[in-house]
């Protein structure tokens, strides 16, 4: 497979009420986006344990996206406040581990922001294409 043809594998965690809706709107609105993402739907971004993110990386994800409702809009009151706290630690561990910062990103996307979701995916895919495969990708996984 030539370098141009390489598509990164990006795992995006989306909360049921906002960012998953955003991904849906992106599709409904026919906004262009590359086929690089695998969406994992969780009820709330607060459900995303750092462990899930580590696991995605260890299984071969080239980037992991943590997304949820805008602060104040979480459908479980403060789930995304908890996400923010966990993310801060997760980010510093991933950075110290020597993983490029583009490979882990946080974004708040509402159900109506289809365009924002699509352009986020486009941007991340571009960045990761430049970086190449993740150094944590297991042997034999493309």
């Amino acid at each position, binding site marked *: 497979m030539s370098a141009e043809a390489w598509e990164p594998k990006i795992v995006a965690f989306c909360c049921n009420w906002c960012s998953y809706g955003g991904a849906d709107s992106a599709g409904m609105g026919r906004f262009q986006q590359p086929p690089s993402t695998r969406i994992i739907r969780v009820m709330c971004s607060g459900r995303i344990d750092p462990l899930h993110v580590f696991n995605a990386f260890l299984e071969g994800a080239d980037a992991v996206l943590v997304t949820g409702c805008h602060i104040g809009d979480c459908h479980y009151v403060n789930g995304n406040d908890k996400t923010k706290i966990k993310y801060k630690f*997760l980010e510093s*561990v991933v950075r110290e581990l*020597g993983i490029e910062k583009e490979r882990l990103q946080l974004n708040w996307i509402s159900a109506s922001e289809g365009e924002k979701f699509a352009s986020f995916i486009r941007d991340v895919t571009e960045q990761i294409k430049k970086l190449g495969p993740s150094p944590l990708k297991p042997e034999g996984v493309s």
Partner: protein
Amino acid sequence: MQKGEMFLGWSTKEDIRKRGGSGGLVTSVLAAALDKKLVDSVVVLKKINDFEAVPVITSDVNEVLNSAGSLHSVPSNFAKLIANKNLKVALPAKGCDVRGIIEQGKRNTIKLDNTFIIGLNCGGSMHPTVTREMLEVMYKIRPEDVHGEEIEKGKLIFETKDGKEHAITIDELEEKGYGRRESCRYCTIKIPNNADLACGNWGVTGELAGKATFVEVNSEKGAELLQNAVDAGYVQIQKPDEKGIAARARIKGAMEGLSRKWKEKVFIPMDNRLEYFRKELENCIDCGACKTVCPTCSCGDVSKCTEFHYRGDAYKMSMYHLVRFLHLADSCIGCGQCTDVCPVDIPLTRLYRRFANPVQEELKYEPGMDLRRPPYFEVKLND
């Protein structure tokens, strides 16, 4: 007697004063607390030889009195020992012991109200196995012939059974890879003001040098402990002079400065960190000892780091270590226990500190120094 006061003190029992690390005050305060029923039990070290000992929880005053003396090559940590036992206990504790106990307190496995902590100033401790090797290689004496050990003016002195003294400077020992454990070299908690009392020999000058313990009262519980020992006739105290107080502060400052230098030397910035961590961890045999001894971990047998890690994984990093790196980022106290017990000699404390240093500096959070909740606990929001 109240918080903030300082004293010079010693045991009223001549024999204990002689055997004690400085004035036998710590032993006597512990014994008095047990004798007068301030506590039900006391933790002390039971000596095997001059560089090995096991910690015991005892209610026997004689066993406490027998324990007088400092063992510099017994890097124990008492926090896990007293956790989940619901004890009313008094115990001696180096800075890292104190920090471990306070962290366990925050995790509800130790009731701090029932725990009387007698802090020991600590310039560092040594690993018993390394000490054995050091005796043979550097001192050219057989470990079995050692009769006593002390630290004086930057020198580590061993006395052999034939009465001879063998001295080498600690700097020289550390240059050759011996001496204090690495985590002690960069530890900046030299006087444990987080304990109820802080005891040591720094600040004892003149005639009393070597015959008295300098003690600082850090809390009301500390005042109760010391007053109890004075009232029970176990110890005698007097006010220190200004010169002593200044000397103690000066030595503390100098030691902390040296630790900061060590820290810079050990944690040089580096590229290719993932490769570094993978290389260091490649011999891991998944024994779990580093977690078992960790004085800030209170998870028990079933925990996130172990339950989501499988030996058959072909991952580039083990999930066990990733979770530990994350959990220790805000909680690692740098005690060095994990490195001490690792059967394949992975420098775990050094790895954990790589993650903990930036987080703890940024959050201005020093685990084990006060009762502030670990920042990660904030996920348990109050509302």
